[in-house]
């Protein structure tokens, strides 16, 4: 598709000016903005920014939650040939310094006081940061920092300029080529400085279109934008595909109202990482346990029916008439109301990605008639590489390569991708670019995996993390830490896991319990606890977790490749792993190396055969203060199973 984002805006505003483009819930009402009004706002913003001095090829930071004016600002920046850099709104101030200085950013859009404060805090380190525009003036009336200005004022100034130069916007938009840089996304990165992933209009829009064609998305679809706009997934779903298809993007009222808003909007196209689906399921299950006997019985009976029949129906397989009738009845009594309650009544296509999803969780949603599928992609590939077709969704694969994509598996097991959506480069980092993008056009994903008998891609782990057990009974066996961690995380009681085993004689894991799920479990058993640390060390909780670990071991023992990755010892951590303490990335992935250094006494205890270990840890609170948590952690051995060798 040889076009640019601003040209698509003009196209929609010309063809269907009165159709809603964006909706935002404010003051209790969904307020819609149509394409014509959006174009006008973008025009004023672009004129204002031009007057303020934003020039072609320059970068502008946008930081905030999904708001219509944030998207309008991105469009205005692109219209001028400048490049928007969305940053994570929950990132700490210090984390914003590198991107801002790396791209010599002079202009920034900040959603509210919180974001403004952050930018002002780092201003001494970013001398070139001239202007900060804020969307929501709440609490900012007494700020008199130079260059801090409200977006309203910018729009007002732009409106005057636009009145004098009526064709300014269109002329600027016409200057752009589809291979010009459109946006830059900073990847969180598990080590070192983040890298700026440079995408052109063509790479993003080509993939947006390919994904839309695959699932036949149209202008009549509705999405709810609730994940950080700095994450490429959200940016594709609520920006690139929004402009490519012209559907309606709905912005929730606040982060706390997302579930309510989801119900009100009833999106037709939905995306969420597995943890969101998990959270929704947990809330349903907790409410079901509190429901009356009749309701609970009915729910259990029909959920059994759904488990038996639902996935088969979803995959288009044949099902007996009796079962069909039963499922239809269940649909009226249970599944329909449940979908409605979750806000999924109108969902036609739902995706999950970013992390592996548990088979039970995946099957649950498909069994109640939600077309949940998986996809594979990353920031560097503009998301869409592999997608699952409607009738072939499976929990353990990520789908088939879609239009335009070529895939091959390198000798070391790494997956290589060739696609029109590959990044142009890493910003000002030719060395990193050369490492992932070879001259013959293959992008090295650094994911290890293989293509199964049905042509579906299956991911095991990161290439660099796949290791070998050294010494002991399983000497030389393959060890895939993330694979083990994910299997454990599929249990609702377990929130995070860090597994160690590379170069060691056995596999040991450190576990974070899920405070909500285990807390609820404890309350139902009249098990008193004083807080997270206390609950985590209860012998009953250890027993519960031990059962989970042993189930995983049993499961791993029948896996031809990974039987040696069974877990020998485990402990439950005294604090939740947190991105603020550097233990997780901003996208909630565990930083295994960092954790190993930070908790080296625990690692020593795990491998030294100790049965308990004292630990004290510094924690950082959200407001920047620090405190410390200490506890004596128990360490338990678990049963492992003799590998069942695949029949030769």
């Amino acid at each position, binding site marked *: 598709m040889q076009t640019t984002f601003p040209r698509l805006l003009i196209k929609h505003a010309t063809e269907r000016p009165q159709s809603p483009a964006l909706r935002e819930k*404010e*003051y*209790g009402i969904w307020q819609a903005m149509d394409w014509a009004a959006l174009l006008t706002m973008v025009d004023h913003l672009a004129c204002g920014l031009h007057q303020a001095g934003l020039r072609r090829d320059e970068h502008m930071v946008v930081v905030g939650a999904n708001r219509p004016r944030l998207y309008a600002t991105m469009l205005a920046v692109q219209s001028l040939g400048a490049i928007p850099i969305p940053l994570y709104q929950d990132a700490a101030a210090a984390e914003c310094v590198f991107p801002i200085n790396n791209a010599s950013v002079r202009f920034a859009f900040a959603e509210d006081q919180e974001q403004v404060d952050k930018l002002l805090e780092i201003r001494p380190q970013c001398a070139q940061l001239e202007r900060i525009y804020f969307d929501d003036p*709440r609490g900012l009336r*007494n700020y008199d920092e130079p260059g801090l200005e409200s977006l309203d004022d910018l729009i007002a100034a732009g409106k005057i300029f636009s009145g004098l130069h009526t064709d300014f916007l269109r002329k600027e938009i016409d200057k752009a080529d589809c291979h010009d840089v459109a946006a830059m996304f900073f990847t969180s990165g598990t080590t070192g400085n983040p890298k700026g992933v440079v995408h052109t209009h063509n790479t993003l829009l080509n993939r947006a279109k390919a994904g839309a064609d695959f699932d036949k998305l149209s202008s009549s679809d509705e999405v709810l934008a609730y994940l950080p706009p700095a994450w490429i997934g959200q940016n594709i779903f609520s920006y690139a595909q929004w402009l490519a298809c012209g559907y309606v993007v709905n912005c929730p009222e*606040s982060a*706390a109202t997302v579930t*309510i808003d989801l119900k009100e909007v009833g999106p037709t196209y939905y995306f969420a990482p597995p943890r969101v689906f998990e959270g929704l399921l947990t809330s349903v299950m907790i409410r079901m346990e509190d429901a009356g006997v009749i309701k609970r019985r009915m729910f259990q009976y029909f959920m059994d029916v759904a488990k038996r029949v639902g996935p088969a129906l979803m995959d288009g397989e044949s099902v007996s008439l009796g079962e069909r009738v039963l499922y239809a009845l269940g649909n009226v009594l249970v599944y329909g109301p449940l979908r409605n309650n979750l806000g999924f009544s109108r969902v036609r296509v739902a995706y999950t990605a970013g992390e592996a999803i548990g088979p039970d969780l995946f099957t649950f949603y498909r069994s109640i008639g939600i077309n949940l599928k998986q996809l594979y992609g990353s920031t560097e590939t503009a998301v869409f590489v592999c997608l699952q077709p409607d009738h072939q969704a499976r929990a353990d694969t990520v789908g088939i390569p879609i239009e335009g994509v070529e895939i091959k598996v390198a000798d070391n097991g790494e997956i290589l991708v060739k696609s029109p959506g590959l990044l142009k480069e890493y910003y000002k980092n030719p060395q990193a670019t050369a490492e992932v993008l070879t001259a013959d056009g293959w992008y090295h994903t650094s994911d290890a995996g293989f293509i199964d008998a049905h042509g579906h891609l299956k991911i095991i782990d990161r290439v660099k993390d796949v290791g070998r057990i050294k010494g002991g009974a399983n000497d030389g066996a393959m060890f895939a830490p993330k694979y083990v961690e994910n299997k454990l995380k599929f249990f609702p009681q377990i929130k995070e896991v860090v597994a160690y085993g590379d170069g060691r004689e056995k596999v040991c894991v450190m576990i974070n319990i899920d405070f909500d799920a285990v807390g609820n479990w404890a309350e139902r058993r009249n098990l008193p606890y004083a807080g997270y640390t206390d609950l985590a060390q209860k012998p009953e909780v250890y027993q519960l977790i031990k059962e989970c670990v042993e189930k995983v071991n049993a499961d791993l023992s029948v896996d031809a490749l990974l039987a040696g990755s069974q877990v020998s010892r485990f402990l439950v951590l005294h604090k939740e792993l947190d991105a603020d303490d550097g233990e997780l990335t901003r996208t909630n992935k565990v930083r295994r190396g960092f954790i190993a250094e930070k908790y080296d006494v625990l690692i020593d205890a795990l491998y030294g055969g100790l049965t308990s270990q004292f630990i004290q840890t510094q924690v950082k609170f959200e*407001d920047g203060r620090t405190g410390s948590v200490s506890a004596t952690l128990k360490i338990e051995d678990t049963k492992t199973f003799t590998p069942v060798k695949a029949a030769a």
Partner: protein
Amino acid sequence: MATKLIGDVILDVKNISLSFGGVKALTDISFNVREHEVRAIIGPNGAGKSSMLNCINGVYTPQQGSISLRGQTFSHMDSHQVATMGIGRTFQNLALFKGMSVIDNIMTGRNLRIKSNLFLQALRIGPAEREEFRHREFVEHIIDFLEIQAYRKTPVGQLPYGLQKRVDLGRALAMEPQVLLLDEPMAGMNVEEKQDMCRFVLDVNQEFGTTVVLIEHDMGVVMDISDRVVVLDYGKKIGDGTPDEVRNNEEVISAYLGTSH
């Protein structure tokens, strides 16, 4: 932060004495509140702080003394009259309608401003409906201001205590008061809830210019957010001035820390 403009005396309390039978709750108390300021009343338990608010509010009638609001003097205030004159308040022990939603609770604060009669309201006929929309819009702005959008339709009784306090504040704000009396707005809250509440109180004061009179136990909070503080002990005024002045006042120190004899 730019300094706000503190205006003339808006509320003047002169020589108030209040007793219940033989118990002297307040003895000859005088102090004033200037427009746009945050004025705190502090003191140990039983010092007479809530009684003082109740006198201003018209709940109690003092035996002696007078209270003037914008130059108009009263020896007896009546609660309804006080509310019409623009004094709103929140309560120490929350007096919300537990079974009603957050919206409805805050809507009750608009009661004084609803013009159409009960009959029209009940039938939601023409002007009454339009009027309700206007009031609802105002309430929505308060909900937005207090960041309680997620609980709009939740019955107040189901909300945690800190949020109920916020709803209580919302209801007081709904009557667009010129003077806001807050009776221990931070009592029973955790640190985070206190910080939030402080910010709301300061925002109300700064964004709307509302004069705030608050009773509070948490010294950190009082010293941080008030412009002037009056200190009561056993129904008597023992200190009055800026937080710094009060902090260094000998009598105040001994009232709080006790004296060695």
